[in-house]
């Protein structure tokens, strides 16, 4: 019996809007100045967010799907999608001010960024492994180009590294995907989840092999140690605006994919959790220890992004209901605080290499607003109340701890004590008396960057004091228990 093709445009609309931005940037780039294109893209991102908000399904409603469940616009997708849109808008806003200085001010930048966002949204909305993979590749290819776009040797080197290592990561991931398909005979998350229950030993071997190779591939995308090697090189080599995009949106999307695959499809599959636990432990140690002695602020933020990957991934070890909500909350907070911190770097740096930590000395006396905002971001990254970073960490630790990962939680706690040192050092320098001549770019304070920073800092403060503004939407465990669909 043939069913009519299941094509629904409403669940696809948020993605199509972003794609429209990408295509229009590609086509109109010949005729319009880039700033106009960026404005169009910002509007389209807002519309996409609105379209997502409309897709919110209340209690009892079935989430909208399309293409036979290949595309799932469930609440998890909406929440992760909104986080992605928030990060993308931050990157675009910052690029309005800095792209010209970074010699990125051409339409391809916008086009590539919007293509990448299309890919990230596809991951968040994916209902089967193929869609997820396509999204992942769209995102990755676009990010490789983004990292290389700037006409500089640093950017080229970082982009090439990213590309070569990334393609190995993708290859591993695809191999794992093929094995998972081989073991379960299904590509859709729901099908895989259903098939994992009753597997013959032969198929179980394949499934475990596939799951671990998938984990290795995703480990590369989210920068879990020892697959994190590219992160500091790429983040510090790429233009800061691109680093902002890579460290927020791309990471959120990769985590969304992990959540779909491991929290949804493979949630009952054995053994991946113990391997993930080891990777997280390595990430926590490497990320935090290597951050301690960095001299370059941008590179330190890159390592801090690695460390945060460890904290974020702990949420994946929780039960889906608790862990998903924790990850959802932490991802938004992480996006906001990292985005705001990198926006400040982008505004103040003299070259795209970022600035040295020692150059931050006395920033308070030169740019009081930025100094206070940066201090707030650093405090939030360190996980200090009353900023939102605290709740993110709290929820992630709680998720892992309640699911029995006691030693990992203890390690994470010790790692966060060590993390205090490298976040506090720049924060203290900011308010030191000002004896050295200013080493930052003097004309960096521009309205769009200021708006981004102000919104980011306001959001992490408000979400720290009233976490329920966001967590209230995430808290329903049913959202995260049905990641794979029924």
């Amino acid at each position, binding site marked *: 019996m043939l069913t009519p093709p299941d094509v629904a445009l409403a669940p696809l609309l948020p993605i199509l809007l972003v794609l429209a931005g990408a295509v229009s940037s590609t086509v109109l780039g010949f005729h319009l100045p880039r700033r106009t294109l960026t404005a169009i893209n910002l509007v389209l991102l807002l519309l996409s967010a609105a379209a997502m908000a409309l897709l919110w399904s209340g209690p009892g409603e079935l989430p909208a799907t399309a293409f036979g469940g290949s595309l799932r616009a469930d609440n998890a997708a909406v929440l992760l999608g909104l986080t992605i849109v928030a990060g993308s808008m931050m990157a675009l806003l910052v690029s309005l001010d800095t792209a010209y200085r970074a010699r990125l001010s051409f339409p391809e930048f916008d086009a590539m960024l919007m*293509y990448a966002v299309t890919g990230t949204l596809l991951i968040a909305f994916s209902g089967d492994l193929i869609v997820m993979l396509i999204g992942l590749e769209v995102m990755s*290819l676009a990010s490789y180009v983004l990292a290389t776009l700037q006409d500089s040797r640093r950017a080229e080197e970082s982009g090439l590294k990213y590309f070569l290592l990334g393609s190995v990561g993708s290859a591993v991931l695809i191999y794992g995907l093929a094995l998972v398909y081989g073991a379960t005979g299904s590509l859709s998350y729901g099908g895989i989840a259903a098939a994992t229950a009753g597997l013959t030993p*032969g198929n179980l071997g394949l499934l475990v092999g596939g799951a671990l190779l998938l984990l290795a591939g995703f480990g590369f995308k989210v920068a879990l140690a020892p697959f994190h090697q590219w992160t500091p090189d790429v983040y510090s080599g790429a233009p800061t605006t691109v680093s902002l995009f890579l460290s927020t949106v791309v990471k959120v999307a990769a985590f969304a994919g992990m959540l779909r695959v491991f929290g949804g499809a493979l949630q009952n599959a054995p053994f991946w959790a113990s391997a993930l636990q080891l990777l997280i432990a390595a990430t926590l140690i490497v990320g935090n220890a290597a951050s301690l002695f960095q001299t370059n602020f941008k590179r330190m933020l890159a390592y801090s992004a690695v460390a945060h990957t460890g904290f974020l991934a702990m949420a994946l070890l929780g039960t889906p209901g608790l862990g998903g909500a924790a990850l959802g909350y932490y991802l938004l907070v992480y996006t906001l605080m990292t985005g705001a911190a990198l926006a400040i770097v982008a505004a103040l740096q003299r070259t795209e290499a970022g600035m040295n930590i020692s150059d931050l000395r006395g920033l308070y006396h030169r740019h009081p607003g930025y100094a206070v905002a940066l201090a707030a971001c650093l405090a939030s990254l360190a996980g200090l109340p009353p900023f939102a970073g605290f709740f993110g960490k709290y929820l992630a630790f709680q998720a892992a701890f309640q699911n029995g990962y006691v030693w990992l939680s203890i390690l994470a706690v*010790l790692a966060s004590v060590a993390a205090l040192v490298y976040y*506090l050092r720049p924060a203290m320098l900011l308010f030191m008396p000002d004896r050295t001549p200013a080493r930052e770019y003097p004309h960096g304070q521009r309205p769009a960057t200021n708006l981004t920073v102000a919104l980011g800092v306001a959001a992490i403060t408000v979400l720290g004091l009233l976490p*329920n503004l966001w967590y209230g939407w995430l808290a329903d465990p049913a959202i995260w228990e049905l990641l794979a669909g029924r």
Partner: protein
Amino acid sequence: MTLAVFFPFLMAALAAWLGPRLGRRTGYVAAAAFLPALLLIPDLLRMPGATPALEVTRWVPTLDLDLAFRGDGFSLLFAVLIGVIGTLASLYSVAYLSDRERFGRFYSYLLLFGGSMLGLVLTDNLVALFGFWEMTSVTSFLLIGLWHTRSAARDGAVKAFLVSALGGLALLAAVALIALGGGSTSLSALDVAALRESAYFAPALLLTLLAAFTKSAQLPFHLWLPTAMEAPTPVSAFLHSATMVKAGVVLVAKFGLLFGSSALWSGIIVPVGLATLVWGSWLALRQTDLKALLAYSTVSQLGLLMSLYGLADAEGRFAATVHLLNHAAFKAALFFVVGIIDHETGTREIPLLGGLRRALPVTFAVALLASLSMAGLPPLGGFISKELFYETMLHQGPLFLAVAVAGSALTFAYSFRLMRVFWGSPRAPAGATPHEAPLGLTVPAAGLALTALAFGLLPGTAETLTRTASAALNFADYGGYLKLWHGVTPALLATVLTWLIGAALVWRAATVEALGRRLTPRVNANTVYYALTQTVNVFSSWLIARTQGLPLPDQLRIMLAAAALMAGYAVWRAPQVFPPIGTPPLGVLPVAALLVAGAVGVLLSRGRLTAVIVTGLTGFGSAAAFLAFRAPDLALTQLLVEAVTVILFLLAFRYLPGVRDLPRTRGRYAFDVLVAGLAGVGATLLVLASLRFQAPPISPYYLEYSYKGGGGKNVVNVILVDFRGFDTLGEVLVVGMVALAVLSLVRLGKPGRPRRAPDDAAELAADLAARRRP
């Protein structure tokens, strides 16, 4: 209560704004911020009888997190204490701070601390308790580091913060465990019996103790308190003697009702507390800096309080609460006195000072009262609480009493040492002309000293205050004990003994000092702390040196080895099952040979062009394989893709230098061979393991419905545009992007012309300048 907690936060914002405008007068605003806390006094005085009020503000209901404040007697008592000392410290600092101080910053930090501390003692919610606890650590860090131009201040601030952050996170873990075991995050609604039964009980207990010991500077975490004395003196008086450091004591007092039933609880706290008492007072005796002396004295007094609350019986709680009040009064007064001395003479070194009683008569009187109370002499409050302490320890056994006497004798001796600066010939550093401090400094100190006196002369006042906490801390049926004269009791005899030993210590001060120098242990908490931080530093720099900025091949090695390890783990945990292969069709063999030849050929090729062409072999080999399996359309696609890939490669190669063999050490070479071999073997085995149909084949479905449903005779086309049209859309996207990438490759500069190194801003500028020149 909610207002009492949040009013200081509001006023902190106001103070930050008013600071530059009002200057030092911001202090009066700060003092006003503690008014709502002082307004809790009527509630307090109603206390042991009245039911505790509970004020709940919803905060994060989904996490069972509320801002609940519960005014039981003990919490209110401590809140009022914070209010009183906070007000006094604010007023004192008005006269104390130098004109160049940033008043806005100082007072807003102070008020942020005040609010957090009030929240800490009043909150009924465990998670909020942690939040306030951590905020006191942060504000303490800010206040210690206030004069951050001094490296000692920075070091002290960081040390204090790290130690208390460790404790804070331990508290977070403890709180999480308690909430899990007790079934509630509300302190008053906990199911204590269930908690005692649960497996979380012992870990939660130990973590709570870690938190309390770090915050209250118990051995071996006492290291942070003396260096925290870099803070301005009013801060030291407020945070580091009267309130914040007592947070650990408060925690032990409150949680003693949960954990007290366990032998582990008193078994750990009492020895640690007593050891801290003796060791702290021994170190205090050896200080020459007045403030350091007071710091170690605080450490030792906190040990005393800890050991009393740790007993977890009514007697201990009662005695501890009395002493808590006494200590707050005399210690804050002494800090204020030291502040005055520092203010007037410019130094705090005991050897440089002498005979100050003539120049500073009022200060002298205050110091005398306060230090007599600290030494435990009648008729002051300290005497009464010491008697109680002895009596409590006597009930525990003679050994406990002996330790208590030793600690108190040392306390007696250092109290005397503190007073030495007032006797003898007048001495002060050159240039300083000490004269009596302004009223703003002396009045707060005098008020506290008179309180200490009142607690002694009129024990009823102390009794009434202590009694307010009786219901909260469960010592209602105990009391009526506060008197100066109990008759000749064992406790009194012990006190006399204490005086004798103390007097001997004072008399033979030189011998004691010589002994002290010889007894200095080589390893102490500080050396351990620095060794630990040093180890982390060394590890970190080693890690950076070894892993940062690795060349690409090494990064690849690590990545592949890790992926191989994970695959190996998978095979180990879930062994593969190999279905029989059967007989492979012979026609495939040449194709396989082609594929293998391609892979090996790349390795052997010298030039880049050869490598590309040989890589092509694998691609065309795959196409051939598709042909052999009768999939001509796939073969065609593969051929096209392969052709495009080769062209792209050739385009890109225009810009690359010639092939160079990277130098490889023998070890790397062996490693590469190993990884490559393992990857090959592993991949082959996995392929062999998956050589069977796991599910019914899907092709019949498509064969049937392509025409019926899709109306197309070419099944592949129908699959592409109909059945999996959505995937095709994605693929089109990929192709579009590849096209853009190709375009940018083509448009990149022409080969041969060196491109400008773009990060060279100088070069760019020179270029521009050259162009502008006519």
